[in-house]
């Protein structure tokens, strides 16, 4: 189970990284085109914006499953392990709820853009495509978030660590 979830999160990270790399290449091609007089790739920055937003949503699952978020540990490290596990479970549960909230609202935002039929300024692609891609990423992020909440709740219930924090 955990291996499958980890593979999913890593797969999303590689997908996001690939999109990011393609955007980097495209941006460089666009600069060269502009400098040698062929002109930039039209709407290059629109693609960067939409692509990077998707990439970031695709990056969240790996951060979630490896507990990569920034925290201040210095005080909480002195709590007894039992209390620590319960707090972690609560935190992770809230995190999962927030990720669900984000996905839900982004889905609703995507539908609004679809209904309004808004298009991007230069390339004239429907804005809901970009929203939809990010929405897909946010759904997987929420899915992984719920799984991690389950893991931490199970840890608190059984009173022992199941999945270590940090990188696999």
């Amino acid at each position, binding site marked *: 189970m955990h291996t499958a979830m980890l593979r999913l999160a*890593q797969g*999303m*990270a*590689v997908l*996001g*990284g*690939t999109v*990011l*790399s393609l*955007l*980097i*290449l495209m*941006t*460089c091609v*666009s*600069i060269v085109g502009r*400098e040698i007089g062929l002109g930039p790739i039209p709407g290059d*920055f629109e693609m*960067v*914006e*939409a692509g*990077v*937003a998707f*990439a*970031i*949503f*695709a*990056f*969240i699952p*790996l*951060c*979630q499953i*490896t507990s*990569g*978020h*920034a*925290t*201040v*540990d*210095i*005080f*909480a490290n002195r709590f007894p392990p039992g209390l620590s596990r319960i*707090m*972690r479970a609560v*935190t992770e549960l*809230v*995190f999962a709820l*927030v990720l669900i*909230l*984000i996905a839900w*609202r*982004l889905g*609703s*935002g995507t539908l*609004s853009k679809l209904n309004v039929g808004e298009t991007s300024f230069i390339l004239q692609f429907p804005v809901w495509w*970009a*929203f939809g891609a*990010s929405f897909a990423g*946010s759904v997987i992020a929420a899915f992984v978030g719920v799984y991690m909440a389950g893991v931490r709740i199970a840890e608190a219930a059984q009173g022992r660590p199941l999945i270590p924090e940090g*990188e696999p």
Partner: protein
Amino acid sequence: MSDLAIGIASFPVLLALIFLRVPIGLAMFVVGLVGVNLVTDGWTVALGRLKTETYTTFSNYSLSIVPMFLLMGHFATLGGMSTALFKAAEGWLGHRKGGVAMASIGACAGFGAICGSSLATAATMGRVALPELRRYGYAGGFSQATLAAGGTLGILIPPSVVLVIYAILTEQNIAKLFLAAFVPGILAALGYVIAISIYVRFYPDRAGTRPRVPYAERLRALVAVWPVLLVFLLVVGGIYAGWFTPTEGAAVGALGTGLIALFNGGLTGKTLIESFHVTARSTAMIFFIVLGAAFYNGFLALTQVPSELADWVVAQGFTPLMVLALILVFYLLLGCVMDSLSMILLTIPIFFPVISALDFGLVNLLDMQAAAVAEALQNGIPEGVAPEMIASIREAVANGVELTREQMRAIDINVSQGRVNRIAAEQTAIWFGILVLIVVEVGLITPPVGMNLFIINAMDRTTKMIETYKAVLFFVASDIIRVVILVAFPAITLFLIR
């Protein structure tokens, strides 16, 4: 409760959550969400904002620099440039007393020029330099402290992820901030070298000696670092010269370091996937804090807390320098427990309006007018201007009297109070940004939770953490002295952008 009271009450709640190990971005997001609900009496506004705010935050064109810089930093690590930089610096400095440590600082500075992250710089240079330091008889604590301090140069020397975030929060020009960070970054490296030479004078037995390297070999080692120089000049020079936007510069840098890594054999399918994993984790971490901060700061703005606080500070009549000093000390203390990006995102929206409301006297109307007059008249008196007019202008400048609009129009200059205020606001923002950048970076090397110390210490567990803590105090002292110098002489930071 009034909105203002809700805003103020949110601080202790937020801090309590953060200290209970709630991820910082999550804590800000939740407090912001609940806060907006309380201030706007219901969930409609908060939920409505969430429809688009996550997407618009993540698709911010300027912020897309961040994942690109992170990928660039990882490619730089894979490209083997850290070894080349260390070899070059070691060749020139290694034979001095404490020279291998000085060389580590030099190599960190060089690596910082192509890497925008402190942790990556510390980790990369640590792997290369720590074994060498130990081989030449440098004490463990001293070696680790050197590399942890050297790592902070990754962010001080542009490109810098933290400066990008600061620029976006305060709506400043990224290129100008990078340029302003350059001299303080060099000063940081020099300050660390001085700290090392003082340290080895106190503890001569903690640094070994190393034979001189012949000049031919030194030059060869120096030539080997050309790709670093090329990428740095292309990225930072190109951004500043206006060849491309900072985001495009980041793309060029990522491609450049990627190509170097490819040619050196460091970039393979396996390491590329690793790079994506590392970039994914850091990017998601940073952007979740950015998102939480955007939400929390949106809530704070609704409550008017930042502007009320700024008004209050001004009304108290504190001197501007006293306020600045208090804020910087606050960062030093908070830096002991919190990471730099979180601190910046958490506090800049509150402190920046305060700093902006104060007058540090960085620019002066009369001085600027005098300079403009001198420039306008340096090629002789412009044609068709009455000599009496020129005489009256010269007299006004000599007596320190503000020029009239007619006088300025006569010699075709325009230095109004409004323009001077705009320049003063920009210079204050940039100066404050560099100062904050330095003090939050000190947090990376201050006990008990300096991240750089942990990263380096994890590489060689035979050294006790307490030894590293003791040695790093020399570097912290160097940082603090540098901050005092930069506060006392703003021109050091600002002369390049004037």
